[in-house]
């Protein structure tokens, strides 16, 4: 880095920053990443309404990642003429210029069915020439605009709980480098949600399309080679549905854990792989001794003790909010009680032989 450059830039920056209200913005708005979300043009009309602009496709995933009660709006924008390379196991390939957009919002009145959500942040994954880059936009209180931040933010969410009482919840917007904690493996950033198993569900209601997403996307010609009918492809069931318990649990673990717990990712060194298609019970935790769990083991001997969730490390860590213990290692502060319960039920129902 040129050592002289900072002084020159400092002078320029000072001129800009101290020049009064009419000073031009410090960043070329003609070139991404834009400093404000609206400049991307993802949404038509009122930004908070999140009405997708032309070419912005809303989608949903079957087994979403828990994020402290945040709801999420998911959207994809392909570059002009760009197509998706399909595989029935991850990862799909996306052309340079693809953008994934995820908006995090909170139901501020949980005592009623309908209300105005409070949008807190919008995260982007942009397929640049160098790979996927992450950008985070923090929404203003007035819900009119979101501004790019790099260092994260703490946001107090005021809400009315199910009983009608006023509550406050601290929500952490991650810093930009934290994105890679989940999205990078083998030093390459990846998208996580858009895989066959996750997208092989009906499209979300906010889109104007009805039916299975993969079938719809195939009809729209979004794939380089059309996959077979979605019904013939693997799919995660809804974790809170009534499908087979094993399939629901494995889908949940994939959606919430496998970004790290797979070879090459952050949790890879533990040897615990929670990919839905991991077939070796020892690799997905059955009678597996932890390597470096520290206090995370909670006195338990194995990741999963078949038939006995109380003796299993996995649900213990899912239920903890202690930073040393809690899993997943994300900047979320609250345990997903539903997920922990699901995994406990799954372990309780296991018929593998005991570990001793």
């Amino acid at each position, binding site marked *: 880095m040129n050592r002289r450059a900072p002084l020159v830039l400092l002078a320029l920056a000072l001129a800009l*920053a101290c020049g009064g209200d009419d000073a031009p913005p410090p*960043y070329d708005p003609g070139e991404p990443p834009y400093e404000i979300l609206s400049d991307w043009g993802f949404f038509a009309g009122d930004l908070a309404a999140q009405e997708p602009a032309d070419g912005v496709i809303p989608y949903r995933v079957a087994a979403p990642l828990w994020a402290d009660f945040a709801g999420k709006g998911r959207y994809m924008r392909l570059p002009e003429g760009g197509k998706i390379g399909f595989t029935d196991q991850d990862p799909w390939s996306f052309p340079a210029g693809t953008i994934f957009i995820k908006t995090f919002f909170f139901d501020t009145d949980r005592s009623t069915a309908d209300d105005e959500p409070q949008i807190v942040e919008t995260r982007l994954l942009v397929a640049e020439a160098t790979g996927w880059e992450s950008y985070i936009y923090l929404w203003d209180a007035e819900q009119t605009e979101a501004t790019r931040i790099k260092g994260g933010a703490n946001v107090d969410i005021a809400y009315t709980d199910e009983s009608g009482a006023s509550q406050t919840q601290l929500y952490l917007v991650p*810093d930009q480098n934290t994105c890679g904690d989940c999205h*990078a493996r083998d030093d390459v950033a990846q998208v996580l949600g858009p895989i066959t198993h996750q997208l092989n569900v009906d499209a979300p209601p906010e889109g104007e399309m009805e039916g299975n997403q993969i079938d719809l996307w195939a009809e729209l010609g979004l794939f380089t080679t059309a996959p077979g009918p979605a019904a013939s492809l693997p799919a995660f069931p809804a974790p809170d549905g009534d499908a087979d318990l094993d399939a629901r649990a494995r889908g949940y673990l994939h959606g919430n854990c496998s970004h790290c717990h797979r070879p090459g990712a952050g949790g890879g*060194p533990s040897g615990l792989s929670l990919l839905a298609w991991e077939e070796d019970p020892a690799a997905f935790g059955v009678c597996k001794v932890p390597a470096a769990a520290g*206090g995370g*083991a909670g006195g338990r001997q194995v990741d999963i003790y078949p038939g006995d969730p109380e003796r299993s490390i996995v649900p213990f860590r899912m239920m903890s909010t202690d930073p040393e213990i809690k899993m997943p290692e994300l900047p979320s502060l609250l345990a997903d009680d539903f997920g922990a319960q699901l995994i406990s039920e799954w372990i309780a129902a296991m018929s593998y032989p005991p*570990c001793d």
Partner: protein
Amino acid sequence: MTHHAKLHAVSLTLVMLALAACGTDGNADGTADSDPDTGSADTSGTSGDLPEGCDIYVEPSADDQTALAEAFVDAGDDSTVCLSAGTFSPTRQLTLESNGVTLRGVGTDMTILDFTGQITGGNGLLVKGNDVTMSDFAVHNTPGDGIRADQVNNVLFERVHVIWEALHSLDNGAYGLYPVQAMGVTIRDCRVVGARDAGIYVGQSTNIVVEDSIAHDNVAGIEIENSTDAIVRRNETFNNTAGILVFNLPGLDVKDGRRTNVYENDIHDNNVDNFADAGTVVGIVPPGVGMLILAADATEVHDNQISNNRSVGVAIIAYSSESMLFEEPNDPAYDIYSETNFIHDNTYTNNGADPDPLVQLLTGMAMPAPDVIFDGCFGEDKDNTDGALSNCVGEADTVRFMDADLCGQGMGISTDTTLVACTQDPLPVE
């Protein structure tokens, strides 16, 4: 990050610096302040001062978390992030992603990252870039691990301290310096105090040097686990439960660690009661152990001072359910035996004087317990006709040795040194 984007990042930082400089702290003329001891009244956490050789400079502020996180985001490849003197109070894990970054403070007593208020993240610092150098700062009181360097090439820790101020607390984090699946690790002139597992822990890594460092009041002072080609020299480990561990554990991606050369260390007074979590392998290590080799191969242990460890000086054991210490590992590719280890020319003083009951059980209540214990376990289906797999002990006649025959493959407990009278090839020191 592209070069172009990096320039933007730099200019943005400078805008923020400049905005801070527009405040009331007397720096509004924007002139660079050459004296780092002045002009620190802004609240942005970064400063217009750029000390020599620094691309980014961060000082303590009202929002250390954001200032440090932004500095780490802005740190492009090959940049130098300088931390001023003072105590920073981050509240989250800080991730360093770029390659070739130097993160440096001004001294381990001067630049302190105190994570007492950390609310999220399993580590204090998480290093993901290659060729990262950290020097001259201290990390205090992380709820989880201190500094983890995950799947990186060439990480250097020099004059870095990781300290948990509450000694032996069950709330302390597990690992202090924590490179894992790294190719090229150097830990030099570092100090780790209070870790609830291993103070200096190198796991699933290759090409490692741990030297001239101090680890005390941890459960394990230094642990080399599932790693290959490590040098552990001139360190001092004391007041831990165990001084130095060389382990191979089952169920990990990287298996079959070998060739750890442990020499010229001062391994003394490692007698602290084990305060590790009960579910961990380290949690079963009895107090009073100087050095323990577990299922590791081709370790050379020589020219160390091993003294006042109340249970045993050096122990070599298998990860065998025969010994009652371990359950049968659920990992078919795992080799439970310690093989080809060579213990020689160490100096032993007053070890085994008050052995832990577990050690007494394994040694037939020998009192004092031996300086060197080999459990006598070996793989019967392996061909060792040339002796290449043998564990060898070449110590002075005064050194008390025991083959504990825990697997029942020998003739019972024996102190006959001819059972281990052999040599293995010395390991390189570079």
